[in-house]
């Protein structure tokens, strides 16, 4: 999404004094610029980085006192944590794959096989993004819940219900960058390929897909991180069988008041998602996306 735009900034960059001059004026100006950047960074440090550091510190402090790795050993040894870790990772991976496939197909139709009202659908997707995720689960509760439309079978309390909800909610996050990328694709390329005898599947594979790869990568990795961190959808299903890492953090901290344990799970969750996000930023910069 915004990353794609942000990478464009590296190409153009804002105006700065030209020439390699490190004259006294340039030095003073850059020092002034650093000074101006200080207040927002200080606020961020106070309200975000410092609390995060406290979480890391707390994860090394078991309730029995002292500093040790005991909370980590306890959490890693517990079956619930390993189960939650596995559920989180495969749910996020499967949701991302689903969102990419579905989002690509739907965006293709909107962009290249337009129908009356395709514009309205594209706008609907923008609106959709501004709704909270738990609405989807709320709707699924009516459809598949115990007194639901489809009837009472235990679909929602399985990971498949969560998977369906996550694919539904996050697909628009893939479609938006794709639609933006498609709108910049020159239709003359498609016409040329088609007049040379390529059929639709081949055009999609050899012309459209290569153009769409950066947008797919950007959307896909954003969705992966968002799925790893999703909480509302899982909370609303009320499923005891589906526990993800964010649910485990919530359960340990609020329901069990086990703060060191919650902090350990939080640290693991942060490492996974920040690691993936950082990897994605490096890769997308390399790819020149």
């Amino acid at each position, binding site marked *: 999404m915004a990353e794609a735009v942000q990478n464009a900034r590296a190409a153009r960059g804002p105006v700065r004094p030209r020439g390699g001059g490190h004259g006294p004026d340039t030095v003073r100006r850059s020092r002034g610029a650093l000074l101006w950047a200080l207040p927002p960074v200080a606020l961020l440090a106070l309200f975000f980085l410092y609390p995060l550091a406290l979480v890391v510190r707390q994860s090394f402090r078991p309730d029995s006192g002292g500093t040790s790795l005991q909370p980590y050993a306890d959490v890693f040894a517990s079956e619930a944590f390993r189960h939650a870790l596995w559920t989180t990772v495969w749910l996020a991976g499967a949701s991302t794959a689903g969102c990419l496939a579905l989002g690509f197909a739907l965006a293709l139709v909107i962009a290249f096989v337009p129908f009356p009202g395709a514009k309205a659908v594209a706008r609907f997707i923008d609106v959709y993004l501004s709704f909270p995720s738990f609405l989807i689960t709320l709707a699924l509760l009516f459809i598949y819940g115990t007194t639901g439309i489809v009837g009472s079978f235990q679909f929602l309390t399985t990971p498949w219900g969560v998977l369906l909800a996550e694919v539904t909610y996050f697909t*628009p996050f893939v479609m938006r960058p794709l639609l933006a990328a498609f709108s910049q694709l020159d239709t003359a390329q498609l016409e040329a390929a088609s007049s040379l005898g390529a059929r639709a599947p081949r055009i999609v594979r050899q012309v459209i897909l290569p153009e769409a790869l950066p947008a797919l990568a950007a959307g896909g990795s954003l969705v992966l991180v968002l799925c790893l961190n999703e909480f509302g959808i899982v909370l609303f299903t009320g499923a005891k069988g589906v526990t993800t890492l964010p649910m485990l953090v919530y359960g340990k901290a609020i329901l069990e008041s086990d703060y060191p344990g919650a902090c350990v799970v939080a640290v693991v969750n942060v490492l996974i998602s920040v690691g993936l996000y950082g990897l994605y930023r490096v890769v997308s910069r390399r790819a020149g996306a």
Partner: protein
Amino acid sequence: MLVHSRKARWAVWAVFLVLFLPLFALPLLVVLGASFATHWSGVLPSHLTTANYRSATRGEALQALTTSLLTAITASLLALTVGTWAALAGAALRKRYRRLLDALFVLPVAVPSVVVGLSVLVAFSQPPMLLNGTRWIVIVAHTVLVTAFAHQSVSAAITRLDPAYEQAAASLGARPSYVLWRVRLPLLLPSLTAAAGLCFALSMGELSATMMLYPPDWTPLPVLVYAATDRGALFTGSAVAVVLMTATLLVLFAVSRVRTRASYR
């Protein structure tokens, strides 16, 4: 046009509708339909009523609506100020520092919001800053979560800004503060309002961090929706959810009106 034959085009559209309607339109319609009903065991909701809305617009629910609105407005304004300041300051930095600043401000997107909630809870439940149990702890968490989005969209807009305007102003003798106030900020106004809308919508629907933090006297709407569904009052819950969606859309619409007026400048 990718598909030329008429029959194939209809087939593609049919597949699109079969995928799109059940997945995206149905959930919203279901929530909307349920908000007017008290029973739903067949295909259509039954026992239609507006009683759900009567309870969703008074008392506890009305208070939750004002709570959500106040939280979202405060958090978006704070986030917009900090995010814009950081984006403007970052644009003047050398490349290395600018990247560092960008990475710092993008971090809250990657950190799970439950963890942001936990960290704010851990940090501000102890002196010197004891915010736990006040409304400010919710507002702080929301601000942290949406600042990243404000910073991203404003800094993307800054790179698209044509430098000729500010150079012209500066060459005519305008001081930097004047250039900022009269040239750059007005040019950025459309993206500032867009960012404000985004922050507002995110904060209105925020549940994960809020669940970790909210004090009993500062309950935002999403928490109320969860509380209703958790005790089995699904139909009241969906009425509250519809109120939440409507409030968000109304504010987004108002914000987009500001944007269209500003972009004529």
